[in-house]
């Protein structure tokens, strides 16, 4: 117990939690926007891979870090557009289309990587995002150490939480997104386009997911590896339910998962002799499932989630 307390009091633990949570924040926000408009996007895992690969490769090819981020954003939007076309106007099964996007996007990313770099055994490295050092603020005790070890992408993720919250709760656009995910007929009857709102929500949501992937190769690490996304997309799908489709709770969920993960790494080193390491590796997922079970019981699903809407059919 003392060990855990000691860990919880270190700034490096909290800094790590926030770092681990960053890609999840992007992912959960992206999935949340899609689902609020009524579409499940199981392409998220593949879109993470695309974002990770494209952002990193663009930077490596000389686009610069922010250029890489832009490329990742656009590539994510592209795969989102495919999902949107298949599921919104064509009304295909969102599960099938989403899983298809994940398989397709993952394979295309690996294929591109291998085609561009046929012979390398260790991937080329880029100069990743550096921690932002803001004068004065960085010198604050504890908080300074936690927050100002983070890169610009983490800050961007936190800003995105605020932005998505503001759009959903304070603007007409957010109202339309929430309404179209609850009852598309309400939006149609008011003369707005159900297709346009849903498709844009999926495109933007997917672009955000890709930023989560880009964080992995451009901030957490400095190169692209096979299998590096490692289920983070699926975790986001679960976290959306945990968050009951609310941005603020999404941030909490992502941080909680990040904290579990950061804790297990530290416990492994401290108690590795007593307990097999796999137990700790498993811990964040087990705890997430437990949290999900509790939260999902009262989850208030967007009523039109998974239900396609066809114009002229009432």
């Amino acid at each position, binding site marked *: 117990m003392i060990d855990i307390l000691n860990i919880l009091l270190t700034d490096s633990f909290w800094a790590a939690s926030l770092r681990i949570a960053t890609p999840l924040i992007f992912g959960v926000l992206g999935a949340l926007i899609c689902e609020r408009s009524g579409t499940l996007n199981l392409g998220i895992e593949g879109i993470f891979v695309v974002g990770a690969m494209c952002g990193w490769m663009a930077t490596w090819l000389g686009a610069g870090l922010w250029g890489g981020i832009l490329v990742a954003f656009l590539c994510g939007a592209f795969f989102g557009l495919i999902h949107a076309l298949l599921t919104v106007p064509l009304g295909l099964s969102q599960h099938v289309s989403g899983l298809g996007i994940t398989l397709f996007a993952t394979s295309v990313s690996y294929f591109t990587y291998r085609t561009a770099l046929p012979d390398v055994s260790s991937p080329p490295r880029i100069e990743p995002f550096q921690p932002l050092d803001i004068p004065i603020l960085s010198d604050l005790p504890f908080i300074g150490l936690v927050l100002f070890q983070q890169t610009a992408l983490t800050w961007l993720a936190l800003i995105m939480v605020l932005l998505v919250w503001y759009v959903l709760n*304070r*603007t*007409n*656009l957010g*109202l*339309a997104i*929430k*309404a*179209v*995910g*609850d*009852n598309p*007929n*309400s*939006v*149609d*009857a*008011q*003369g*707005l386009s159900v297709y346009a709102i849903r498709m844009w929500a999926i495109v933007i949501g997917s672009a955000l997911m890709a930023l989560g992937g880009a964080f992995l190769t451009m901030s957490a690490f400095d190169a692209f590896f096979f299998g590096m996304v490692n289920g983070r997309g699926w975790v986001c799908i679960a976290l959306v339910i945990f968050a009951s489709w609310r941005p603020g709770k999404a941030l909490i969920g992502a941080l909680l998962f990040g904290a579990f993960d950061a804790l297990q790494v530290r416990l492994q080193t401290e108690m590795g002799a007593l307990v097999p390491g796999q137990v700790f590796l498993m811990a964040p997922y087990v705890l997430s499932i437990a949290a999900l079970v509790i939260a999902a019981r009262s989850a*208030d699903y*967007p*009523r039109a989630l998974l239900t396609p809407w066809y114009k*002229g059919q*009432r």
Partner: protein
Amino acid sequence: MEASTVLKLNGLAKRFGSILANDDVTIHLQKGEVLALLGENGAGKTTLMNMLFGHYLPDSGNIEIKSVNDDFVPLELGNPSAALTAGIGMVHQHFTLAENITAFENITLGAEPLFSLRRNQRKAEKKINNIMSNSGLEAPLDIPVGRLSVGERQRVEILKALYRDAHILVLDEPTAVLTPQEADALFSNLRRMTKQGLSVIFITHKMREVLSFSDRLVVLRHGKNVGSMETSNASEKKIARLMVGSETQKVFPKRITPGGPILSLNDISVAGRSKRDSLQNISLTLKSHEILGIAGISGNGQNVLADLISGLVLPDKGSILLKGVAIQNINPLNMIKLGFGRIPEDRHRQGIVGGLSVSENMVIERLDDPLIQNFGFLRSSVINDNAQTLSEKYDVRGPGIDQASRLLSGGNIQKLILARVFEQQPKIILANQPTRGLDMGAASDVQRHLIEARDRGGGVILISEDLDEILGLADRIVVMRDANLHDVNSSSREAIGLMMAGESV
């Protein structure tokens, strides 16, 4: 009010596959009038209004609407947004409200540009409050629509249209979900608004409403405008003749004095997740030679009661007695064997197995009958002969007895169920909304069979939202409200309506 035309529907036609839903319909609407659009199910009323509002694109014909300069301009077809701009508001039968946002947000949704940083709430609030006080339509604005009552939601729908400056309001079966009192309030509010210049079209098949509230009526049959008249010249007979083509015989049952009790529910409780799916200390006695009508607005526990009598739900407390003996094994199969016949509310999902053929569905409740099967192998010739005979006897029409039953129309599915149930001569019949959505012909078939079953000595429990049906058929009436049954002393429509709405008489 001087008569001046504000809207012209000119020769509208719409075809869905092989069905001609609307055929050259021409209707002119006058300023400040209440126009009732009447017709049987499938006569094309809703299709017509959906074309007016731009949900459907007509195959031919056009719509003209009076502009501010008093000349007629054609309305852009197939575009709800254009209809809204032209001042047409529509209140759909199935509300088009998002339940996760407030009434205020539903009303203003789409009225302001999507891409603005803020919402201009104060101006909108002022406008809505103005409309509410002018029209008499009140609804709580700032709680999620999901928590509003059906009547309140309907008022929000109308407010939504008025907020968009609608001067033509279309209401699709507005009273289907309302208590008689709520319906009366709605119509008096509408009357108030037409005095202020609003023109109203309302779709219905309830004669009483047409006769008491409309100024003029138009009857559609098979997609055609078959006649219009001033309501002051109309009578129920005249309208019915137009609607079905000839006068139909209304079912007037002769009442036999009931026999002894055959089914009793004794202080039964079922704990559901909400009031909608629970029962609280219900006691009920059904006699032979009796139709017991259970009136009430749906969602007050009727479906649990129906499931209970069908054997789908077990009581948590209390017992079900059949001729004084408690039923031990409550399950659907046993109930059928004990002589229960069931006509379920959702005939498509609970009444038939859509993928199985008509002939299979006709024997599906007695598959262990040795006439039907031999050591588990179905005797298809017997099953087919049975279906052939019953289809003729009960007038089940469709693509064929070997075809999937889901291909039948709603009325024919109901006749299939009648054939299956009544051929077994059940002692107790549970009919849950048996005529909902049926046209007059099919509905009167259903009613005739219920009366025949009663005259044979059976007991019928008739659950219906249609008060006219209950009043016309039932020998005794109880009202279901809040998971409870309430005895009715008076058979007046008003008294029952008040009880349905929850007021003590």
